[in-house]
């Protein structure tokens, strides 16, 4: 049994398909679903968390079908949406207590122990009695994770878990997520942060217009791409390029090339500039990143239609 399984999962809104025939198998790992705004990431998560009904295809979480046994799905997973929604006039403890009750933990002693435990894991014990109004963004996100963990779900869905957080908070959120995976939980994340996905996700899938284009470990996905050589110059591209070097773009005095062996090619490229009398200010080589894979898959200039709800929520958060 797969923790998350979808077969031909499809959602159509007003005649247009937002998610098209998605097939996923996710088990005991951190799976990152990447894609531009409007690519169907949130709709996919909403179908898996039983907030949206699929138009066709099937999906199951821990063996429970999302349409036939949606209550079973909700018992085995937790969902932390993108909007940071903690009750600011409740204390941290009370916020978690609410969810402990919603998950049906009726025994008072057990409830107290579990709340204490998750607050401790998320490092919030000292501030548990404070109104969450006084919590920072990172603390609020950790409190939401505590709420989600209080019923020990087998699968955790996180929609943009680090959006709007500073660097330190982002890192600590990912460290908590990694720890949870270590305890055997399956974690399904959507994100726009390529660097975070590359660093922390075991596998990623890239979604474009509701279709899964690429799927694999970040290593597998980047291994197909060449190294990147970046040269700052005022001379444009050299007329004679070394063998095996492809120019990618020339922008703001920066020439970008791709090559299978970056280090060797760098020397060759610099030699070309020298031979032609070109001026080079600096040059560097880097390996391919997930962002390169993403940009190649998605292509430039994909603008999603404006989502008014999302925008309003973002404005409120600032």
């Amino acid at each position, binding site marked *: 049994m797969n923790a998350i399984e979808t077969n031909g999962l499809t959602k159509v809104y007003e005649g247009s398909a937002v998610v098209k025939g998605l097939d996923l198998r996710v088990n005991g790992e951190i799976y990152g679903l990447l894609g531009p705004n409007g690519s169907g990431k949130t709709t996919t998560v909403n179908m898996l968390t039983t907030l949206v009904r699929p138009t066709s295809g099937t999906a199951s979480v821990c063996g429970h079908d999302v349409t036939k046994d949606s209550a079973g799905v909700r018992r085995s997973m937790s969902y932390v949406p993108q909007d940071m929604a903690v*009750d600011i006039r*409740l204390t941290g403890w009370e916020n978690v207590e609410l969810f402990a*009750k*919603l998950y049906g933990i009726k025994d008072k002693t057990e409830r107290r122990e579990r709340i204490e435990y998750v607050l401790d894991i998320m490092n919030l014990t000292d501030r548990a009695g404070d109104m969450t109004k006084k919590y920072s963004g990172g603390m609020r996100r950790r409190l939401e994770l505590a709420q989600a963990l209080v019923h020990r779900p087998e699968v955790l869905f996180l929609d943009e878990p680090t959006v709007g957080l500073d660097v330190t908070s982002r890192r600590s959120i990912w460290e908590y997520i990694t720890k949870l995976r270590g305890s055997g939980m399956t974690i399904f994340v959507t994100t726009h942060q390529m660097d975070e996905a590359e660093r922390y996700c075991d596998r990623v899938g890239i979604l474009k217009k509701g279709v899964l284009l690429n799927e694999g470990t970040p290593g597998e996905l980047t291994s197909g791409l060449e190294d990147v050589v970046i040269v700052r110059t005022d001379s444009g591209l050299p007329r004679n390029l070394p063998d095996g070097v492809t120019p990618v773009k020339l922008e703001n005095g920066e020439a970008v090339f791709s090559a299978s062996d970056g280090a060797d090619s760098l020397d060759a490229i610099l030699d070309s500039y020298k031979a032609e009398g070109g001026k080079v200010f600096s040059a560097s080589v880097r390996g391919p990143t997930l962002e390169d894979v993403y940009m190649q898959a998605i292509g430039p200039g994909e603008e999603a239609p404006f989502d008014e709800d999302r925008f309003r929520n973002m404005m409120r958060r600032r």
Partner: protein
Amino acid sequence: MIYGVLAYAQRDLRRWIRSPMNVISTLVMPAAWLIFMGVVLPGTDKGYLDFITPGVLVMTMLNAGLFGGSSLMFDKVLGYLDKFLAAPTPRESILAGKIIFITVRGLLQALVIQIIAILVGATVLSLWAYIATFAILALFGVFVASFGTTIALYLGEHDSYAAAQSFLSMPLYLASTAMLRYDQMPAVLFYIAKVNPLSYAIDAARMASSGTFPLLEVAVLVAVSVVMALLCIRMFRRATIS
């Protein structure tokens, strides 16, 4: 189910009690109305204060219910609802908790207004008369909370709902038996008052105060509350599952 309902209602009550401005602001209007109409206005006597007190109590429930109508819509807009919907508690318990919260809050406010009424000179009734009055107010509270919640979910955003709320509240109050008896009304008002659920709540509360059981009025209130609650459940399902 019940457990989840209580958890949701407790959440809302806690949030409300910790916001003193909200607590006070919803009391000012009915208190001012009661004191102005019942005490200050020249030519009024104790009889008129006793006459308008049930109306002001119902008005308190009306305002509390309409004010609370936006609560679930806010939960939706602010993202709380998605988290609640993904929890295993039956989904309708979110709505039930909300209606109970709005009604209980209204009853607490009505209790304060009732105490003010006694302090400014309203006749003290028997305990049973008060219990009957508050049972009627609770019934009306369920109606108005469902009504407000349905409209707010339908409109989907706060500005439109605020407009609808101010548009509904005063006319409903004035076109009822709150200030006038049926035999004092012009014909147009009479017919409007006759189909206004507020009149039935007010008449029922008046009859309870005078010691008669308002069978017809209570039957009408039960009927409109059930219908409105069903409409509200339908709207809730439409607003939550797509």
